[in-house]
Protein backbone atom coordinates (compact mmCIF):
# COMPACT_ATOMS: atom_id res chain seq x y z
CA UNK A 1 0.00 0.00 0.00
CA UNK A 2 1.25 3.44 -1.01
CA UNK A 3 3.09 5.06 1.90
CA UNK A 4 1.78 8.55 1.05
CA UNK A 5 -1.77 7.28 1.23
CA UNK A 6 -1.10 5.55 4.54
CA UNK A 7 0.39 8.75 5.91
CA UNK A 8 -2.66 10.72 4.78
CA UNK A 9 -5.03 8.14 6.28
CA UNK A 10 -3.17 8.35 9.59
CA UNK A 11 -4.39 11.94 9.97
CA UNK A 12 -7.88 10.60 10.55
CA UNK A 13 -8.78 10.18 14.20
CA UNK A 14 -11.72 8.32 15.73
CA UNK A 15 -14.97 10.26 15.79
CA UNK A 16 -14.01 12.72 13.09
CA UNK A 17 -16.55 14.26 10.74
CA UNK A 18 -15.42 13.24 7.26
CA UNK A 19 -16.79 14.91 4.11
CA UNK A 20 -16.87 12.74 0.96
CA UNK A 21 -18.01 13.76 -2.54
CA UNK A 22 -20.75 12.39 -4.77
CA UNK A 23 -19.87 9.47 -7.10
CA UNK A 24 -19.23 11.52 -10.20
CA UNK A 25 -17.35 14.41 -8.62
CA UNK A 26 -14.09 12.67 -7.72
CA UNK A 27 -14.24 10.02 -5.00
CA UNK A 28 -10.83 9.12 -3.59
CA UNK A 29 -11.39 5.37 -3.69
CA UNK A 30 -7.60 5.08 -3.35
CA UNK A 31 -7.95 6.29 0.23
CA UNK A 32 -10.61 3.74 1.23
CA UNK A 33 -8.36 0.77 1.99
CA UNK A 34 -5.69 2.93 3.72
CA UNK A 35 -8.48 4.37 5.89
CA UNK A 36 -9.68 0.88 6.74
CA UNK A 37 -6.12 -0.30 7.44
CA UNK A 38 -5.56 2.73 9.69
CA UNK A 39 -8.73 1.80 11.52
CA UNK A 40 -9.91 5.09 13.03
CA UNK A 41 -13.58 4.41 13.66
CA UNK A 42 -16.73 6.03 15.01
CA UNK A 43 -16.65 8.28 11.96
CA UNK A 44 -19.38 10.74 11.10
CA UNK A 45 -19.59 10.67 7.31
CA UNK A 46 -20.97 13.69 5.51
CA UNK A 47 -21.92 12.81 1.93
CA UNK A 48 -21.73 15.80 -0.40
CA UNK A 49 -24.53 15.41 -1.15
CA UNK A 50 -24.90 11.63 -1.65
CA UNK A 51 -22.74 8.58 -1.00
CA UNK A 52 -21.86 5.39 -2.79
CA UNK A 53 -19.22 2.70 -2.85
CA UNK A 54 -16.77 4.38 -0.47
CA UNK A 55 -19.46 4.97 2.13
CA UNK A 56 -20.66 1.38 1.77
CA UNK A 57 -17.14 0.02 2.26
CA UNK A 58 -16.40 2.19 5.29
CA UNK A 59 -19.73 1.14 6.81
CA UNK A 60 -18.99 -2.50 5.96
CA UNK A 61 -15.61 -2.21 7.67
CA UNK A 62 -17.30 -1.04 10.83
CA UNK A 63 -15.70 2.40 10.92
CA UNK A 64 -18.87 4.43 10.78
CA UNK A 65 -21.09 5.68 13.58
CA UNK A 66 -23.19 8.23 11.64
CA UNK A 67 -24.09 8.83 8.01
CA UNK A 68 -25.33 12.32 7.14
CA UNK A 69 -26.55 12.14 3.56
CA UNK A 70 -29.24 12.76 0.98
CA UNK A 71 -28.89 9.22 -0.37
CA UNK A 72 -26.56 6.22 -0.50
CA UNK A 73 -26.58 3.89 -3.48
CA UNK A 74 -24.36 2.20 -6.02
CA UNK A 75 -26.19 3.90 -8.89
CA UNK A 76 -26.68 1.52 -11.77
CA UNK A 77 -25.40 -1.30 -9.59
CA UNK A 78 -28.34 -0.88 -7.23
CA UNK A 79 -28.65 -0.35 -3.49
CA UNK A 80 -25.66 -0.05 -1.18
CA UNK A 81 -25.62 -3.49 0.49
CA UNK A 82 -23.57 -2.85 3.62
CA UNK A 83 -25.21 0.50 4.25
CA UNK A 84 -28.69 -0.98 3.81
CA UNK A 85 -27.87 -3.88 6.15
CA UNK A 86 -26.53 -1.47 8.78
CA UNK A 87 -29.75 0.57 8.55
CA UNK A 88 -31.81 -2.60 9.03
CA UNK A 89 -29.64 -3.69 11.95
CA UNK A 90 -29.70 -0.24 13.50
CA UNK A 91 -25.91 -0.21 13.80
CA UNK A 92 -25.44 3.27 12.30
CA UNK A 93 -27.10 6.53 13.14
CA UNK A 94 -28.84 8.16 10.18
CA UNK A 95 -28.99 11.87 9.53
CA UNK A 96 -31.17 11.82 6.43
CA UNK A 97 -31.01 15.11 4.55
CA UNK A 98 -31.78 16.48 1.11
CA UNK A 99 -29.06 17.55 -1.32
CA UNK A 100 -29.37 21.34 -1.01
CA UNK A 101 -29.45 21.09 2.79
CA UNK A 102 -26.01 19.49 2.78
CA UNK A 103 -24.81 22.23 0.43
CA UNK A 104 -26.41 24.85 2.67
CA UNK A 105 -24.69 23.53 5.79
CA UNK A 106 -21.31 23.55 4.07
CA UNK A 107 -22.00 27.02 2.67
CA UNK A 108 -22.72 28.29 6.17
CA UNK A 109 -19.32 26.98 7.27
CA UNK A 110 -17.69 28.51 4.18
CA UNK A 111 -19.21 31.89 5.03
CA UNK A 112 -18.49 31.65 8.74
CA UNK A 113 -22.21 31.94 9.39
CA UNK A 114 -23.95 29.92 12.09
CA UNK A 115 -26.67 28.70 9.68
CA UNK A 116 -28.25 29.12 6.27
CA UNK A 117 -31.96 29.42 5.57
CA UNK A 118 -33.47 27.06 3.02
CA UNK A 119 -36.79 26.80 1.24
CA UNK A 120 -38.65 23.51 0.92
CA UNK A 121 -38.58 20.84 3.64
CA UNK A 122 -41.68 22.03 5.50
CA UNK A 123 -43.96 19.04 6.11
CA UNK A 124 -41.37 16.40 5.24
CA UNK A 125 -40.29 13.54 7.47
CA UNK A 126 -36.75 14.53 6.59
CA UNK A 127 -37.27 17.71 8.62
CA UNK A 128 -39.28 15.94 11.33
CA UNK A 129 -36.35 13.65 12.11
CA UNK A 130 -33.70 16.39 12.21
CA UNK A 131 -33.69 17.83 15.71
CA UNK A 132 -30.57 19.79 14.78
CA UNK A 133 -32.51 21.90 12.23
CA UNK A 134 -34.80 24.74 13.18
CA UNK A 135 -37.84 26.43 11.67
CA UNK A 136 -38.49 30.15 12.09
CA UNK A 137 -40.95 32.51 10.52
CA UNK A 138 -39.21 34.52 7.81
CA UNK A 139 -38.57 37.85 9.57
CA UNK A 140 -38.89 39.69 6.24
CA UNK A 141 -42.44 38.43 5.63
CA UNK A 142 -45.43 40.10 7.22
CA UNK A 143 -45.96 37.03 9.41
CA UNK A 144 -46.00 33.29 8.93
CA UNK A 145 -43.87 32.03 6.04
CA UNK A 146 -41.92 29.31 7.85
CA UNK A 147 -38.36 28.74 6.66
CA UNK A 148 -35.88 26.07 7.73
CA UNK A 149 -32.48 27.02 9.13
CA UNK A 150 -29.67 24.54 8.47
CA UNK A 151 -26.77 24.86 10.93
CA UNK A 152 -23.23 25.07 9.61
CA UNK A 153 -21.57 21.75 8.80
CA UNK A 154 -17.91 21.84 9.85
CA UNK A 155 -16.18 18.65 8.69
CA UNK A 156 -12.89 17.82 10.37
CA UNK A 157 -11.55 16.53 7.10
CA UNK A 158 -12.58 16.44 3.44
CA UNK A 159 -11.22 13.67 1.22
CA UNK A 160 -11.44 13.63 -2.58
CA UNK A 161 -9.70 12.74 -5.83
CA UNK A 162 -8.86 15.19 -8.63
CA UNK A 163 -7.05 15.13 -11.96
CA UNK A 164 -3.94 17.05 -10.92
CA UNK A 165 -2.07 19.08 -8.36
CA UNK A 166 1.08 21.15 -8.62
CA UNK A 167 4.20 21.11 -6.42
CA UNK A 168 2.79 23.95 -4.28
CA UNK A 169 -0.29 21.95 -3.38
CA UNK A 170 -2.75 23.75 -5.64
CA UNK A 171 -5.34 21.27 -6.92
CA UNK A 172 -7.19 21.43 -10.24
CA UNK A 173 -10.86 20.62 -9.65
CA UNK A 174 -12.30 22.01 -12.88
CA UNK A 175 -15.99 22.74 -12.65
CA UNK A 176 -16.54 20.35 -9.73
CA UNK A 177 -16.87 23.24 -7.35
CA UNK A 178 -18.47 21.12 -4.63
CA UNK A 179 -14.90 19.93 -3.99
CA UNK A 180 -13.89 23.51 -3.25
CA UNK A 181 -16.98 23.95 -1.09
CA UNK A 182 -15.98 20.87 0.93
CA UNK A 183 -12.46 22.18 1.39
CA UNK A 184 -13.58 25.69 2.39
CA UNK A 185 -15.84 24.21 5.06
CA UNK A 186 -13.37 21.64 6.41
CA UNK A 187 -10.54 22.07 8.87
CA UNK A 188 -8.31 19.76 6.79
CA UNK A 189 -8.45 18.52 3.21
CA UNK A 190 -6.72 15.39 1.90
CA UNK A 191 -6.47 15.01 -1.86
CA UNK A 192 -5.36 12.23 -4.15
CA UNK A 193 -4.63 13.09 -7.77
CA UNK A 194 -3.99 11.34 -11.05
CA UNK A 195 -0.73 13.21 -11.46
CA UNK A 196 1.42 15.98 -10.06
CA UNK A 197 2.41 18.60 -12.61
CA UNK A 198 5.53 20.74 -12.58
CA UNK A 199 3.95 24.06 -13.55
CA UNK A 200 2.09 26.31 -11.11
CA UNK A 201 -1.65 25.89 -11.71
CA UNK A 202 -2.27 29.48 -10.67
CA UNK A 203 0.26 30.88 -13.13
CA UNK A 204 -2.22 31.32 -15.92
CA UNK A 205 -5.83 32.39 -15.79
CA UNK A 206 -7.04 29.38 -17.78
CA UNK A 207 -6.02 26.75 -15.23
CA UNK A 208 -6.41 29.10 -12.26
CA UNK A 209 -10.14 29.25 -13.00
CA UNK A 210 -10.53 25.60 -11.99
CA UNK A 211 -7.96 25.49 -9.18
CA UNK A 212 -8.44 25.07 -5.45
CA UNK A 213 -5.59 27.06 -3.84
CA UNK A 214 -3.08 25.26 -1.62
CA UNK A 215 -4.29 27.39 1.29
CA UNK A 216 -7.13 24.89 1.74
CA UNK A 217 -5.15 21.72 1.04
CA UNK A 218 -3.51 19.83 3.90
CA UNK A 219 -1.86 17.04 1.90
CA UNK A 220 -1.73 15.69 -1.64
CA UNK A 221 -0.70 12.23 -2.83
CA UNK A 222 -0.39 10.78 -6.30
CA UNK A 223 -2.77 7.88 -6.95
CA UNK A 224 -3.26 7.08 -10.64
CA UNK A 225 -6.79 5.86 -11.38
CA UNK A 226 -7.51 6.75 -7.77
CA UNK A 227 -11.26 7.06 -8.31
CA UNK A 228 -11.57 3.53 -9.68
CA UNK A 229 -14.01 1.82 -9.97
CA UNK A 230 -15.66 5.22 -10.18
CA UNK A 231 -14.76 7.38 -13.13
CA UNK A 232 -13.12 10.77 -13.13
CA UNK A 233 -14.51 13.47 -15.41
CA UNK A 234 -12.38 14.10 -18.45
CA UNK A 235 -10.15 11.15 -17.52
CA UNK A 236 -11.87 7.75 -17.43
CA UNK A 237 -15.35 6.29 -17.17
CA UNK A 238 -16.95 4.37 -14.32
CA UNK A 239 -16.22 0.64 -14.29
CA UNK A 240 -19.81 -0.52 -13.87
CA UNK A 241 -18.84 -4.20 -14.07
CA UNK A 242 -16.67 -3.78 -11.01
CA UNK A 243 -19.48 -2.00 -9.16
CA UNK A 244 -21.76 -4.90 -10.03
CA UNK A 245 -19.12 -7.37 -8.87
CA UNK A 246 -18.93 -5.53 -5.56
CA UNK A 247 -22.72 -5.30 -5.26
CA UNK A 248 -23.01 -9.06 -5.65
CA UNK A 249 -20.16 -9.86 -3.29
CA UNK A 250 -21.23 -7.46 -0.55
CA UNK A 251 -24.73 -8.86 -0.17
CA UNK A 252 -23.32 -10.72 2.85
CA UNK A 253 -20.76 -9.66 5.43
CA UNK A 254 -18.61 -12.65 4.43
CA UNK A 255 -18.76 -11.74 0.75
CA UNK A 256 -17.84 -8.18 1.62
CA UNK A 257 -14.85 -9.30 3.72
CA UNK A 258 -13.66 -11.54 0.91
CA UNK A 259 -14.02 -8.75 -1.66
CA UNK A 260 -12.11 -6.31 0.49
CA UNK A 261 -9.35 -8.81 1.19
CA UNK A 262 -8.79 -9.15 -2.56
CA UNK A 263 -6.25 -6.89 -4.14
CA UNK A 264 -7.71 -3.78 -5.74
CA UNK A 265 -6.65 -3.74 -9.34
CA UNK A 266 -7.51 -1.39 -12.14
Amino acid sequence: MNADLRAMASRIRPGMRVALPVDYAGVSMAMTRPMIAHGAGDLHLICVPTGGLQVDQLVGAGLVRTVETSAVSLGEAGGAPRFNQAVKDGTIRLRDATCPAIHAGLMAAQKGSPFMPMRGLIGTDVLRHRDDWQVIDNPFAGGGDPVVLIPAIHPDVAIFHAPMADRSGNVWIGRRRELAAMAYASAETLVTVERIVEHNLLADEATAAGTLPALYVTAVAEAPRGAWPYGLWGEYATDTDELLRYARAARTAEGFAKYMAGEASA
Partner: protein
Amino acid sequence: MTAILPRETLIFTIARLLDGVKLVAVGAASPVPAAGAMLRRALDDGRRTVRLSVLGSVEHNFFTNGSAELFDCAGQGRLDAFFLGGGQIDGQANVNLVGVGDYPQTQVRWPGSFGSAYLYFTVPKVILFREEHTPRVLVEKVDFISAPGVSPPGVYRPGGPVALLTSKGLFRFDSGRPGFTLESVHPGHDAAEIAAATGFAYETPAIVPETPLPDPATLTLLRGRVLDELAETYPAFAAEWRRDLAALAA
Protein backbone atom coordinates in the same frame (compact mmCIF):
# COMPACT_ATOMS: atom_id res chain seq x y z
CA MET B 1 -50.98 2.33 -38.84
CA THR B 2 -47.48 2.07 -37.48
CA ALA B 3 -47.09 0.06 -34.28
CA ILE B 4 -45.83 2.12 -31.35
CA LEU B 5 -43.64 0.67 -28.61
CA PRO B 6 -44.85 1.18 -25.02
CA ARG B 7 -41.75 3.18 -24.18
CA GLU B 8 -42.40 5.42 -27.15
CA THR B 9 -45.83 6.21 -25.73
CA LEU B 10 -44.19 7.12 -22.41
CA ILE B 11 -41.57 9.30 -24.08
CA PHE B 12 -44.18 11.08 -26.20
CA THR B 13 -46.38 11.62 -23.15
CA ILE B 14 -43.48 13.19 -21.28
CA ALA B 15 -42.75 15.43 -24.25
CA ARG B 16 -46.39 16.55 -24.19
CA LEU B 17 -46.22 17.26 -20.46
CA LEU B 18 -43.09 19.34 -21.02
CA ASP B 19 -44.81 21.68 -23.47
CA GLY B 20 -43.63 25.23 -22.82
CA VAL B 21 -40.60 24.48 -20.62
CA LYS B 22 -37.25 26.19 -21.13
CA LEU B 23 -35.08 24.20 -18.73
CA VAL B 24 -35.60 20.62 -17.66
CA ALA B 25 -33.32 18.41 -15.58
CA VAL B 26 -33.37 14.63 -15.34
CA GLY B 27 -31.63 12.23 -12.98
CA ALA B 28 -28.60 10.20 -13.97
CA ALA B 29 -30.33 6.88 -14.68
CA SER B 30 -33.49 8.21 -16.33
CA PRO B 31 -33.47 7.39 -20.04
CA VAL B 32 -37.24 7.75 -20.58
CA PRO B 33 -37.50 11.25 -19.05
CA ALA B 34 -34.31 12.22 -20.88
CA ALA B 35 -35.76 11.00 -24.16
CA GLY B 36 -38.99 12.88 -23.46
CA ALA B 37 -37.02 16.08 -22.89
CA MET B 38 -34.98 15.46 -26.05
CA LEU B 39 -38.18 14.98 -28.04
CA ARG B 40 -39.59 18.21 -26.58
CA ARG B 41 -36.40 19.99 -27.64
CA ALA B 42 -36.61 18.50 -31.13
CA LEU B 43 -40.30 19.46 -31.47
CA ASP B 44 -39.57 23.05 -30.38
CA ASP B 45 -36.51 23.41 -32.58
CA GLY B 46 -36.31 26.87 -34.11
CA ARG B 47 -39.21 28.19 -32.01
CA ARG B 48 -37.92 28.06 -28.47
CA THR B 49 -34.70 27.08 -26.74
CA VAL B 50 -35.21 24.01 -24.56
CA ARG B 51 -32.26 23.21 -22.33
CA LEU B 52 -31.73 19.80 -20.83
CA SER B 53 -29.39 18.86 -18.02
CA VAL B 54 -28.67 15.22 -17.24
CA LEU B 55 -27.33 15.04 -13.69
CA GLY B 56 -23.98 13.40 -13.29
CA SER B 57 -23.41 13.38 -17.04
CA VAL B 58 -20.30 15.07 -18.38
CA GLU B 59 -21.70 15.34 -21.93
CA HIS B 60 -25.21 16.58 -21.20
CA ASN B 61 -24.55 18.88 -18.34
CA PHE B 62 -23.85 22.53 -18.92
CA PHE B 63 -23.55 23.40 -15.25
CA THR B 64 -20.18 24.71 -14.09
CA ASN B 65 -20.74 25.38 -10.41
CA GLY B 66 -20.76 21.88 -8.94
CA SER B 67 -23.70 19.78 -7.86
CA ALA B 68 -25.32 22.70 -6.00
CA GLU B 69 -26.05 24.58 -9.23
CA LEU B 70 -29.15 22.55 -10.10
CA PHE B 71 -30.72 23.45 -6.77
CA ASP B 72 -29.65 27.06 -7.10
CA CYS B 73 -31.34 27.12 -10.53
CA ALA B 74 -34.52 25.78 -8.99
CA GLY B 75 -34.33 28.41 -6.25
CA GLN B 76 -33.91 31.13 -8.88
CA GLY B 77 -37.02 29.90 -10.69
CA ARG B 78 -35.01 28.90 -13.75
CA LEU B 79 -35.78 25.18 -13.57
CA ASP B 80 -39.17 24.54 -15.17
CA ALA B 81 -39.48 20.79 -14.91
CA PHE B 82 -38.04 17.83 -13.05
CA PHE B 83 -38.89 14.16 -12.55
CA LEU B 84 -39.35 12.22 -9.36
CA GLY B 85 -39.81 8.51 -8.92
CA GLY B 86 -40.47 7.09 -5.52
CA GLY B 87 -40.50 3.74 -3.78
CA GLN B 88 -43.97 4.76 -2.67
CA ILE B 89 -46.32 7.44 -4.01
CA ASP B 90 -49.66 8.08 -2.35
CA GLY B 91 -52.95 9.70 -3.33
CA GLN B 92 -51.86 13.07 -1.94
CA ALA B 93 -48.81 12.85 -4.22
CA ASN B 94 -46.55 12.37 -1.22
CA VAL B 95 -43.32 10.70 -2.26
CA ASN B 96 -41.22 8.25 -0.25
CA LEU B 97 -37.64 7.66 -1.38
CA VAL B 98 -36.36 6.46 2.00
CA GLY B 99 -37.81 3.09 2.98
CA VAL B 100 -40.57 0.79 4.15
CA GLY B 101 -41.30 0.38 7.84
CA ASP B 102 -40.57 2.53 10.85
CA TYR B 103 -37.82 5.06 10.31
CA PRO B 104 -34.91 5.03 10.93
CA GLN B 105 -34.67 1.23 11.20
CA THR B 106 -36.65 0.65 8.00
CA GLN B 107 -36.88 -2.96 6.89
CA VAL B 108 -36.40 -1.93 3.27
CA ARG B 109 -34.06 0.96 2.75
CA TRP B 110 -34.01 2.88 -0.52
CA PRO B 111 -31.18 5.30 -1.33
CA GLY B 112 -32.70 8.41 0.23
CA SER B 113 -34.57 11.60 -0.51
CA PHE B 114 -31.94 13.14 -2.82
CA GLY B 115 -33.07 16.66 -3.71
CA SER B 116 -36.79 15.89 -3.61
CA ALA B 117 -37.47 17.69 -0.33
CA TYR B 118 -36.41 20.90 -2.07
CA LEU B 119 -37.17 20.47 -5.78
CA TYR B 120 -40.75 19.32 -5.19
CA PHE B 121 -41.35 22.72 -3.57
CA THR B 122 -39.57 24.90 -6.09
CA VAL B 123 -39.95 23.37 -9.57
CA PRO B 124 -43.29 24.35 -11.14
CA LYS B 125 -43.72 21.18 -13.15
CA VAL B 126 -42.69 18.03 -11.32
CA ILE B 127 -43.61 14.88 -13.19
CA LEU B 128 -43.93 11.74 -11.11
CA PHE B 129 -42.64 8.92 -13.26
CA ARG B 130 -42.67 5.34 -12.05
CA GLU B 131 -43.13 2.49 -14.52
CA GLU B 132 -44.17 -0.06 -11.93
CA HIS B 133 -47.90 0.40 -11.39
CA THR B 134 -48.83 -1.81 -8.43
CA PRO B 135 -50.50 -1.33 -5.03
CA ARG B 136 -47.04 -1.79 -3.53
CA VAL B 137 -45.81 1.42 -5.14
CA LEU B 138 -49.03 3.44 -5.42
CA VAL B 139 -50.09 3.29 -1.79
CA GLU B 140 -52.77 4.94 0.28
CA LYS B 141 -50.24 6.56 2.58
CA VAL B 142 -46.46 6.59 2.28
CA ASP B 143 -44.38 5.30 5.22
CA PHE B 144 -42.04 8.30 5.04
CA ILE B 145 -42.65 11.67 3.42
CA SER B 146 -39.51 12.57 1.51
CA ALA B 147 -41.53 15.31 -0.16
CA PRO B 148 -45.20 16.19 0.31
CA GLY B 149 -47.59 16.57 -2.62
CA VAL B 150 -49.21 19.68 -1.20
CA SER B 151 -48.44 22.24 1.47
CA PRO B 152 -50.70 24.24 3.79
CA PRO B 153 -51.41 27.88 2.92
CA GLY B 154 -48.58 30.19 3.94
CA VAL B 155 -45.84 27.74 3.01
CA TYR B 156 -43.62 28.92 0.15
CA ARG B 157 -44.53 26.50 -2.63
CA PRO B 158 -44.15 27.71 -6.21
CA GLY B 159 -43.59 24.12 -7.33
CA GLY B 160 -45.21 20.74 -7.10
CA PRO B 161 -46.53 17.70 -8.91
CA VAL B 162 -48.55 18.06 -12.11
CA ALA B 163 -48.88 14.45 -13.24
CA LEU B 164 -48.10 10.82 -12.48
CA LEU B 165 -47.07 8.65 -15.39
CA THR B 166 -46.81 4.86 -15.09
CA SER B 167 -46.57 1.95 -17.52
CA LYS B 168 -50.37 1.75 -17.52
CA GLY B 169 -51.65 5.29 -17.65
CA LEU B 170 -51.43 8.99 -16.92
CA PHE B 171 -52.91 10.79 -13.91
CA ARG B 172 -53.24 14.56 -13.52
CA PHE B 173 -52.77 16.00 -10.05
CA ASP B 174 -55.11 18.65 -8.68
CA SER B 175 -53.40 20.40 -5.78
CA GLY B 176 -56.62 22.20 -4.86
CA ARG B 177 -58.57 19.07 -4.02
CA PRO B 178 -55.89 17.53 -3.54
CA GLY B 179 -55.80 14.30 -5.48
CA PHE B 180 -55.22 12.50 -8.75
CA THR B 181 -57.57 12.13 -11.70
CA LEU B 182 -57.02 9.39 -14.25
CA GLU B 183 -56.45 11.26 -17.50
CA SER B 184 -55.76 8.47 -19.96
CA VAL B 185 -54.83 4.81 -20.25
CA HIS B 186 -52.05 3.55 -22.48
CA PRO B 187 -52.84 1.19 -25.35
CA GLY B 188 -53.38 -2.36 -24.09
CA HIS B 189 -54.59 -1.26 -20.64
CA ASP B 190 -57.95 -0.16 -19.29
CA ALA B 191 -59.47 1.73 -16.40
CA ALA B 192 -60.49 -1.40 -14.49
CA GLU B 193 -56.97 -2.79 -14.60
CA ILE B 194 -55.64 0.53 -13.33
CA ALA B 195 -58.17 0.60 -10.52
CA ALA B 196 -57.04 -2.84 -9.40
CA ALA B 197 -53.38 -1.87 -9.53
CA THR B 198 -53.68 1.43 -7.65
CA GLY B 199 -53.57 1.52 -3.86
CA PHE B 200 -54.92 5.05 -3.46
CA ALA B 201 -58.28 6.61 -4.30
CA TYR B 202 -58.49 8.88 -7.34
CA GLU B 203 -61.12 10.30 -9.65
CA THR B 204 -62.08 8.60 -12.90
CA PRO B 205 -64.07 10.35 -15.63
CA ALA B 206 -67.05 8.52 -17.15
CA ILE B 207 -65.06 7.83 -20.27
CA VAL B 208 -61.31 7.45 -19.95
CA PRO B 209 -59.55 8.27 -23.21
CA GLU B 210 -56.56 6.41 -24.57
CA THR B 211 -53.21 8.14 -24.15
CA PRO B 212 -52.43 10.06 -27.35
CA LEU B 213 -49.82 8.48 -29.60
CA PRO B 214 -47.20 10.27 -31.67
CA ASP B 215 -48.13 11.17 -35.24
CA PRO B 216 -45.86 9.94 -38.06
CA ALA B 217 -43.75 13.12 -38.16
CA THR B 218 -43.16 12.98 -34.40
CA LEU B 219 -42.41 9.28 -34.61
CA THR B 220 -39.79 9.96 -37.27
CA LEU B 221 -38.17 12.55 -35.00
CA LEU B 222 -38.35 10.15 -32.06
CA ARG B 223 -36.81 7.18 -33.86
CA GLY B 224 -34.26 9.33 -35.66
CA ARG B 225 -32.78 12.38 -33.97
CA VAL B 226 -33.94 11.59 -30.43
CA LEU B 227 -32.78 7.99 -30.50
CA ASP B 228 -29.41 9.09 -31.86
CA GLU B 229 -29.01 11.75 -29.16
CA LEU B 230 -30.07 9.36 -26.46
CA ALA B 231 -27.56 6.74 -27.55
CA GLU B 232 -24.67 9.00 -26.50
CA THR B 233 -25.73 8.95 -22.84
CA TYR B 234 -27.77 5.75 -22.58
CA PRO B 235 -26.21 3.32 -25.06
CA ALA B 236 -27.73 0.18 -23.50
CA PHE B 237 -31.25 1.64 -23.45
CA ALA B 238 -30.92 2.90 -27.03
CA ALA B 239 -29.63 -0.47 -28.26
CA GLU B 240 -32.58 -2.29 -26.70
CA TRP B 241 -35.00 0.21 -28.25
CA ARG B 242 -33.36 -0.37 -31.66
CA ARG B 243 -33.68 -4.16 -31.24
CA ASP B 244 -37.39 -3.77 -30.43
CA LEU B 245 -37.85 -1.57 -33.51
CA ALA B 246 -36.17 -4.19 -35.66
CA ALA B 247 -38.49 -6.83 -34.21
CA LEU B 248 -41.53 -4.62 -34.99
CA ALA B 249 -40.41 -4.26 -38.58
CA ALA B 250 -39.84 -8.00 -39.01
